[in-house]
């Protein structure tokens, strides 16, 4: 059908080639850092010299990965970033689950049980998506101290839940708005209660938005640096903070291959999620801009 509109004249053919050339060039631009990161992470240190940025490793080795995981120095300690990787998991999993459950219930209550002022409450909560977090850092530090949660994983989980529910509520609210209200009304007539209706009617259709919310929260919290660096101590730091410390630790020679391996380790979980569930990832990114 393409050919009906534009017969392949030489000019059109040239145009096509130009289009593909630009697209491929762009693909190279986006790929280059990942490729360099990967090949550098498999090079022994002596293969890293001026001009070898793109050359493949002569004798590939996983030693940089082993070192990044278990031996490299992050600040004062030299235990690699493996422990911090598990810190991140221990923070991310509960924070994602809790904020998603709260967001689902909020979105349900805001759409299927509207009451006077519920739209206003939504607007009130939505504002939390937009504030620069710098404006809550200092009071948060003090509040965590009062709660006895300073520098703890529990404290970081709390912070991520608090500032995540604005987003999860937005996702679920926009999704549930589009679910027909007739079913819910009928169930109410039959005397079904709040949680029963949620469990039997809303939850079974919620799979896509749960995936969107989980992926969004996972990516946001895994990639967080600001809260991690402000509210953690050396033994509770998330992997992003440890990676930054590792790269900026200036003792002895710089092991660039170890830096790159550490960066890959920190990047793998979110990259994996993106590869496995890209569609939902994009939907989460655009949820803020496309009204439901």
């Amino acid at each position, binding site marked *: 059908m393409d050919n009906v509109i534009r017969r392949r004249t030489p000019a059109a053919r040239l145009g096509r080639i130009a289009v593909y050339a630009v697209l491929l060039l762009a693909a190279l631009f986006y790929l280059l850092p990942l490729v360099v990161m990967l090949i550098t992470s498999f090079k022994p240190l002596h293969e890293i010299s001026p001009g070898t940025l793109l050359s493949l490793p002569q004798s590939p080795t996983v030693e940089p990965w082993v070192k990044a995981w278990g031996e490299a120095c992050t600040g004062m300690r030299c235990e690699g970033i493996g422990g911090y990787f598990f810190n991140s998991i221990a923070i991310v999993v509960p924070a994602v689950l809790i904020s998603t459950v709260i967001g689902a219930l909020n979105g349900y209550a805001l759409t299927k049980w509207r*009451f006077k002022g519920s739209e206003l409450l939504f607007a009130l909560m939505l504002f939390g998506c937009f504030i*620069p977090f710098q404006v809550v850092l200092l009071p948060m530090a003090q509040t965590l101290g009062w709660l006895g949660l300073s520098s703890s994983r529990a404290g970081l989980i709390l912070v991520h839940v608090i500032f995540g529910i604005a987003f999860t509520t937005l996702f679920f609210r926009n999704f549930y708005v589009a679910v027909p209200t007739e079913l819910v009304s009928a169930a109410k007539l039959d005397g079904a209660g709040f949680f029963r209706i949620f469990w039997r009617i809303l939850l079974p259709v919620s799979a896509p938005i749960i995936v969107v919310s989980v992926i969004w929260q996972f990516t946001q919290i895994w990639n967080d*640096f600001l809260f991690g660096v402000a509210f953690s101590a050396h033994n509770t730091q998330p992997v992003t903070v440890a990676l930054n410390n590792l790269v900026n630790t200036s003792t002895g020679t710089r092991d660039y291959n170890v830096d790159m391996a550490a960066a890959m380790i920190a990047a793998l979980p979110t990259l994996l999620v993106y590869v496995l569930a890209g569609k939902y990832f994009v939907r989460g990114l655009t949820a803020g801009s496309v009204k439901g």
Partner: protein
Amino acid sequence: MTIVSHAQERPVRPAARRNAAAHLQDWLPRLVLAPSVAITLFFVYGFMLWTFVLSLTSSRMLPSYDFVGFAQYARLMANDRWWVASTNLVIFGGLFVAICLGIGVMLAILLDQRIRQEGALRTLYLYPMALSFIVTGVVWKWLLNPGLGIQAMVRSWGFESFTFNWIVDPDMAIYTLVLAAVWQASGFVMALFLAGLRGIDDSIIKAAQLDGASLPRTYLRVILPCLRPVMFSAVMILSHIAIKSFDLVVALTGGGPGYATDLPATFMYAHAFTRAQIGLGSASAMLMLGGVLAILIPYLYSELRSRKHG
């Protein structure tokens, strides 16, 4: 959007004992929302107010509450480093938003030309968005390292005088932030616009082409104006990313050379957490909030207006 009144749907229940249960059902939604609302009131609005109060005090190492009026804001205005940070934000934010839009729109339009392997290309353009800014910073720091990165590579190809040492040049370092941030976020703009392009009615395009409009002209005059809301959202989201940029600066340049690449976010963090200037840091945080509101309020206003008219 119509607001359904539940009062009319509820059946009249004669049994008095059901009243308590019905009452509970009435209040349950509010009870479910209550913790989130309370949390938002305290941790978002309360904390904003708290930070504002701190910005009016002489707090240094620890928060203290002896008020000095707007003296911290006056200090901020007289602070060179703050002006560098603010100017940097204007340069960084402006270029970042403009280039992301340019690249994003271009890639979206090109991808919309029935391209083979479109899905694969789209995936490649968008994956940086899944990475942490720290990872992005670490990788680009390596690529931009004059001794071992791109500069050294091009020189080894025989272009001995090729120079690409922005990261160590105080005048150019800010543009390395733009480069890395554009790399990370431009694919996202592409995704937004591609979704927008796919949503446009084909008949409009056909009509324009029947009228003899060339393809570029059709895009420029007919299609892109339809995408104004997408453009608006993209600008909103990108400027928001720009104002909050903190991790990228920390990982890529550390604010350096000197403080040549400081942004308000790193300025705030440095003063509030490492330089024992809590009052000054709070004042800078409030100005950041002001900046966000200056972008957000016109956006929300137009959103609400279009919703009313739409």
